């Protein structure tokens, strides 16, 4: 599925790229990248250079001292940064894998099989998408604490998966529905079982949808803050977002160091967004057609 606007080429109606449009495009790009550029710039400066007057709009004397303090061995903050990076990668990866697996098989059943009660089940899944994100924050905390799962990977991943499943199921459902009807019949005539049809015929066709859904789920998981803030109480499970936010309040942490920490936390999501933007845009649009 290619985005609607690249599928259909149109001839330009009014004078192609007008000056107004060019200015608009420049403003869009500036608006999107300036905060990132400024943090990147500050992260390569000393606090003194960052505050210098006249102001420096480029790192004139670039330094790696902020990154050294964040990552180097034996510094006051590097232990937390390292462990929380491991945590966030594990939590995001597990949540994404489980979400994709469960959402795909359920979406297959919802979109291509017939069974009693299907609509009720499906609406129940979709209805939870209407909840604002933090409606269930307190009860989820109390349930997890009741099962002794606070401050465990299991607890955090379970909550993430429950939060991401509805959207993932919905995107995959729409994706499966967009595949032609004849596929299963062809497979079933050959005597294949339904699961074999799913595995050998539908999954390869649905691969772009699966990639989109996986990327979106991963980015959502990476961006979580309030849920892990509540569900993890120490460094054994706290993700990078929580640990970095805690640095913000410390008086011995200068603004250039915070910028470097911010840059570290956005490298992976920014690369994913830039490299795979086509998949992400398609996935978001598949998920929003109602």
């Amino acid at each position, binding site marked *: 599925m290619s985005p*609607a606007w690249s599928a259909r080429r149109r001839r330009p109606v009014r004078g192609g790229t007008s000056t107004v449009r060019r200015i608009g495009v420049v403003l869009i790009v500036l608006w999107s990248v300036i905060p990132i550029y400024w943090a990147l710039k500050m992260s390569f400066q000393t606090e003194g250079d960052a505050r210098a007057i006249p102001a420096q709009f480029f790192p004139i004397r670039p330094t790696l001292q902020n990154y050294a303090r964040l990552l180097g061995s034996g510094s006051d903050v590097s232990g937390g940064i390292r462990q929380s990076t491991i945590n966030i990668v594990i939590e995001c990866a597990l949540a994404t894998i489980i979400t994709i697996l469960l959402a795909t098989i359920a979406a297959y059943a919802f979109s291509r099989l017939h069974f009693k009660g299907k609509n009720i089940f499906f609406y129940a899944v979709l209805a939870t998408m209407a*909840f604002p994100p933090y409606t269930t924050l307190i009860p989820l905390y109390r349930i997890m604490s009741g099962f002794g799962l606070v401050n465990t990977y299991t607890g955090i991943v379970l909550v993430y998966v429950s939060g991401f499943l509805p959207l993932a199921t919905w995107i995959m459902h729409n994706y499966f529905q967009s595949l032609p009807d004849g596929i299963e019949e062809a497979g079933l005539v050959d005597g294949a079982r339904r699961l074999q049809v799913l595995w050998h015929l539908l999954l390869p066709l649905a691969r772009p949808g699966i990639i989109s859904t996986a990327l979106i789920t991963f980015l959502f998981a990476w961006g979580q803050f309030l849920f892990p803030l509540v569900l993890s109480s120490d460094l054994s499970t706290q993700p990078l977002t929580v640990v970095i936010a805690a640095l913000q309040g410390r008086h011995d942490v200068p603004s*250039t160091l915070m910028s470097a920490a911010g840059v570290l936390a956005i490298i992976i999501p920014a690369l994913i967004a830039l490299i795979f933007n086509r998949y992400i845009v398609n996935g978001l649009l598949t998920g929003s057609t109602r």
Partner: protein
Amino acid sequence: MTFSRGVESSSQAVGQPGAAPSGGVTTVVVRRGRRRFEVLPYALVAPVMIFIIALALVPAVFTIVESFFTVNPLDPPTRFSGLANFVHIAHDKAVISSIGNTAFYMVVGVLLSTAMALAIAVVLQRPFRGRSLVIAVLILPWALPGVVEGILWTGIFDPNAGLINSLLTTLHLGGTGVLLGQSRLLTITLIELVQVWQITPLSVLLILATLQLIPDELYEAAEIDGCSPWRSFLAITFPLARPGIAVCMVQAVIATINIFDQPYILNGAADTGASLTMQTYFISFQNLDFGQGYALSLLITAVTLVISLGVVRAIYRKVEL
């Protein structure tokens, strides 16, 4: 698993009256014409349903029921207390002030992000070289964690090292002084600007998708009739983009009423910017008064749903092209 029609038709043949119960001979198995009960679909949806029921629907019921109970580990046992939680939060000064803040976040955020998204979508409406690259850069803010965006923008607003201050001093317009935490209006506007940065990209995509469906002929006809670009925006683009605008406003309403990361990072617990979700967090996880936390999150949910529905009714129009 029902296989093909062949099986069913033969089962009907076997199931003819008279051929059915035949004494003690058990060689003939009577099959009913009905489809067999299939286990597979239920097995496939079961994991998702278990997750949804256990970790979304049950917690939602919890929230509704326990908002009428005193639930506080420091004040056991859990007991029914009627509307006490709601009465209490209605008299809580911090909650009342955060209602004002949140309303302001919502109004600023929804209007600003929708207006900007519409403008950006119009700029991107027609294909040009490098458009997919612009879209790739555009969705960048959507993909980043809200907390970290708060940190990035701290660098913009910083009274010393910040970009705004640097620009002002370079242009000899004086410095900014402290931007956040002084005036409530300015603080909330700047914090909401950070959230607008995050939520606008998705709004652009939603509106852009509807703009792509508008046929060029409409614009050509408008131009022949002597319509200015602004006139054809009002007469063609805006009305036909309404479904996309409605969806993008709803996602903005949900995001802004539930704002947490940006004010938490940029302004801490200060009254000048604390949102309702932040109060829910403080009440539940610092005061450990879960009952009041339930009541507050129930109210937030109800308000979010009511306003979302209102927006849909006001903005959404079915478009047929």
